């Protein structure tokens, strides 16, 4: 029987990787559209904001994944939660 906490931790780690890929895509998208005259002017600021938020979200999820995995395995993790 699998440990539900470990399953969640694995899924969170996978999601964090997905968010990392999203960040890469956003960065490429922003770069591509910055050179596109057809792109509306409001788009660039919006994409930059999304990029920043996505990066923070990736950090949050990665941290949560590690801490949850550490808790699931019953050992204290090397990370301290940030305030």
């Amino acid at each position, binding site marked *: 029987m699998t440990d539900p906490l470990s399953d969640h931790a694995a899924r969170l780690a996978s999601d964090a990787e997905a968010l990392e890929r999203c960040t890469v895509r956003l960065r490429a998208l922003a770069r591509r559209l910055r050179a596109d005259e*057809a792109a509306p002017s409001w788009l660039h600021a919006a994409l930059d904001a999304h990029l920043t938020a996505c990066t923070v979200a990736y950090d*949050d999820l990665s941290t949560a994944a590690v*801490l949850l995995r550490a808790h699931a395995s019953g050992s204290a993790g090397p990370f301290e939660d940030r305030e």
Partner: protein
Amino acid sequence: MTPENTPIPARTPEERDQVSGESDSGARCGGAGEEASGRLMAAARELAEIAHALREASVHATAALHEPALAASLRRSPGTGLRAQRALLRAVTDRRGLGWAVSGGRAGTLGAKLGGLVHAGNLPIRVMTTSLRLRIAAVVLHHPELAEDPLLRRLLEAVSADGDLAAGRALHALIRDRGAARALSGIAPIFGELLALRALLDKNPLNDNTAWLIATGLGAATADPLTGMSNRVVARLDRGAGAAVPVEPAPHEAGRLSTRGSFLDYLCDLLVIRPTGRALVQTVRGPDGVERHVVLAPGMRTGGFDTDSPADLLGAFSSTVLDSGPYSRSLAAAVADYGVPEGAEVALIGHSAGGSAIMSLAQDPEFNARHVLTDAIAIGSPIDFKQPASPATRVSSITNHHDIIPTLDGQGAGNCFALHPDWYIVDYTDSTHLFPACHGLEQYAANLRDDLPEARAHLEAQLTAYTGPIVRRRLYRLYDHAPHPAGFPFLTVPTHSRHTSEGPVTVPVRTFDATVFTAWFTVPAEKAAALLTGTPFTPVTAASRAIAVLHFTTHHRSTLDPHHETTLSLLVHSPLHPRPTGLLRDLLRAPALRHAGLHPLAAAVTTPQARAAAADLWSHPAHLTETTLTLTPTAVEAAITAPGETTPLLVLTGTPGPRLRPPAPRRSAATRVLYSRTGNTPYRSTLQSTGPTTTHPVPRLLLTAGAPEHPLPALLHALSLPRTRPFLCQTTPSARLLHHPPAPLTSSSVDHPLTPEP
């Protein structure tokens, strides 16, 4: 019918110049604008995918946070447990990251709804909002009027901003300035995106899921994007197994239906039968000599939200939302009734709700098991989330950017997803057409014939096998439920045939619609008895008076031909046991069980068939006459003349007078007991009737009999009724009648009940 001589309206050169079309065949027009729009759409699609991934991550993080095992493990390892819990909470609430991204599961859904109420933003929604705004920007490149028009621009800005009130005001200003039709036409190309944007940004948490479905193209909008009310709940009100009854086209329709089948000819036939709740099934002999079949399904029939037609407004709604509904099932019933052979090739063509219905039928595995569905062509229909059961079915969809109807499943011109790369999609714009005009099949047909030559050529080529002479066709009226037989249930009875001098008559004689007027008179008892001398009948008398009754009946629709019937009768005792002292008890019996009844002395009818039935079946004298009867709540006028004569045999005129009480619907049929005779053998029959009857106790009517040379006025004179007034009258403006054949009243009939003649 040639394409040039069709119901498709002609287009002016100016109108043709204002159409730009595109199709997924690769032929595009619009040049640089098209490419720029494509780039923005591709970017919008990426953003939608990113938003969806962010949302998925939010759901998983929320699930982890609310995992019961986590709470249970806190006792074992409170330190690491609390740290993990805080990190998860941070992940789904960090304003700098995912934002208030609690979602999924019961707790997550509640949390999301609470967040929506207080307008707590989250990253998945912000990214999806950017995707939607980018799609709108891409559509604006095709439709510059969206940016140039100040009112439309104001609406777009308000919708994209975070304010319900501003968006509502902007929409109100647009409608007030343009009218609803022009306002809808203006925003039609971005209608779905506007709805999704508004739903994502408003404070109503109930419509968020629908907004996400519209924005991601993952499925049809299952709820109203403004209120969040479930569409499926409403759609499921559309009930019925579906039925199809063959009908004949009107003469002017029959003359205009095509004799030859081709793509444009099938559109013309759809225009001929119009959205009237009917469908057409046709057999065409293709160039290879093989007979194939085409089903044509028109759009919604106007008039009523939920009628007995599956093509009503509710039916149009359910055809869009559900995979199967009364409309698609009634089309299947039409195909079955037509007798399309198993394994035959079939093409379905539908407009608007008909297009949704044919696609629902295309999804039906049973239908696909019986027939080879080669083509499904939907025009102006919301079908993005329907998928044929057979991968070999070629699906074609033709939509106008300004047509709102195809966007009702959430996907319109602003759709950035390639939902069906294998479909042939014609999505074009025509700035001269306003909604709802642009939704009409006439406009689509005209555009296809004149303005979209590539699309026309493609569809004509696709239907090559269905091009050729029409060898058979059947028009069907469609129903939610199989219609009851005429006269059901009162007139749904076993019948048999009886011979008369004018040919066979089906008995009991049934009248589906009749008008009945009855006048009651008192006559001298001795005069009545004198007329009944030599018969087995005795008049019912009281205080030396007997009762005579005149029934005037107009049989509007009957198993006999339409006719008038006037009968003069006397109220008599049962011929078997005349019991004057038992009359009161007889009155207390149910009408069908009474012993007393009416004995017709003579009848005046207006057709030879009715005369033969009266004389040969019920054995009372019947005379062929001409009759007029006018019956209104305040006037009665009846006149009977011999054929070709002008002098009336009898006339009854006047006013019925006050009613005893308002007509009340009967809970059971009224029964008139009738006695006749053949020789010395009395016969008893019953005439049952339903329909509201009004009694007038003080009629102001005058009966005038003509000269006594004719048998009918002679009877009136014999009864001292040359000029007299009835004491009572009754009117039944709309009645159904069931006149049973007579049964002999003999001792032998007790052991040997009457059997019908072969």
